């Protein structure tokens, strides 16, 4: 029976460790590849390094909604919404067509897929496919700078 108590104890420890929030001295991951490591707790601060999404970083300190990370010889700050205790899942990029395989983001941003258009045609829904293309254009017209300005104005994300 002691064996099972021990197993349960180990499981409870693993569970608590995994469920724990970000904490100084523990490791963490950033959710975006190329995440800027900032010199200060300010989204407009200078970038001291670019971080990789599947790399483990040491948490040095936590201050409000900001996390201080160590990246090699650099130390800097990242907004906590961009940091995860768990490693982000690998992206399955198999069967991406050649022209889109350079970056997954490009693959995800190339508009309504030709096979989806073919599906729409077979279902007699070409008009809906045109609507989706209109939707794509409306969304593409909103730039990252627009979103950043909106978030600044409404004190959202790292602008809180």
């Amino acid at each position, binding site marked *: *029976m002691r064996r*099972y108590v021990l197993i*349960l104890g180990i*499981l409870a420890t*693993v*569970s608590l460790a*995994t*469920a724990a929030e970000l904490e100084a001295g523990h490791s963490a991951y950033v*959710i*975006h590849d190329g995440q800027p490591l900032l010199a200060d707790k300010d989204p407009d601060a200078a970038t001291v390094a670019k971080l990789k999404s599947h790399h483990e970083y040491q948490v040095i300190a936590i201050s409000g909604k900001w996390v201080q990370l160590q990246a090699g010889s650099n130390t800097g700050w990242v907004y*906590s*919404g*961009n940091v995860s205790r768990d490693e*982000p*899942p*690998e*992206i*399955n*990029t*198999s*069967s*991406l*067509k050649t022209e*889109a395989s350079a970056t*997954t*983001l490009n*693959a*995800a*941003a*190339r508009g*309504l*897929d030709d*096979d*989806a258009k*073919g*599906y*729409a045609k*077979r*279902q007699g*829904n070409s*008009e*809906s*496919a045109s*609507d*989706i293309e*209109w*939707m*794509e254009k*409306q*969304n593409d017209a*909103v730039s990252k700078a*627009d*979103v950043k300005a*909106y*978030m600044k104005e*409404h*004190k*959202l*994300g790292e602008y*809180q």
Partner: protein
Amino acid sequence: MSRGNFLVTGVVLLLVTGITRAQFNIPSIPSINPFHPSAPSTPSAPTTSSINDSTLNGVVEMAKGATGISLADEMKIGGAVAVDIVARNGGLVKDEEINHRVILIGKSLSTYCARPELNFRFAVLNSDSINAYSAPGGYVFITRGLYNSAANDQELAAVLAHEIEHIVKRHALKVISRGQFMKGLFDAGGSITNTSAFDSGVQSITDTLFTKGFDPSAEFEADKEGRSLAAKVGYERSALLDFLQQLFKTEGDSKEAFPTHPPLSHRIERLEK
């Protein structure tokens, strides 16, 4: 191994499986598999080895993005599902001001979601019903009825975050079985070789979206994770609960609002805990 030891081992391994699923937010398998309609919604009592297998499979599943469906294939399936969503809801509201507002709120949320590789897109469906939909690959829709019912940006954000989490957790993709759906469907270049199988797979998702709805556990998970996402971005944590409570006052559990979701009272009860 004695029967007693076997039972205790089973309980321990069940706990491992439960913890693994909870820690990594792997939702329960949808109860309906369109390719195997007779398959039981709850697995039969597992043996020790099958529990070990399920734990291992859970980890493998997580590493493959839970479905094993690639990003490119997800874009194809999602695009086709999005076409059906628009077709069944009277097209889109092509008011640029309305769309701009929804897109800014949606993109603020998706910036901090757990699948940053996706390019999320947002639109308003030309339907009076109060409902919202998502399709794999990052397509998020709310109806005109819902847009008009939301009191403010906070409530719109709450609903959009719920739909984003359906995509993040790949709830729609889990409706289809990769083994049945994907086998031999695409050639080496990623093009579809069997259109009828593709169409059938897409329709099994839209059938779930429009008729059966997701498994309630998937909806409750999207409520919970969506609320966390909205709060992380700086929207009010209580906004989803406020919105559902307001709807409940006028609609009750009549299914006029969110007809394929669990009853409003059940969602409210979960969010109040």
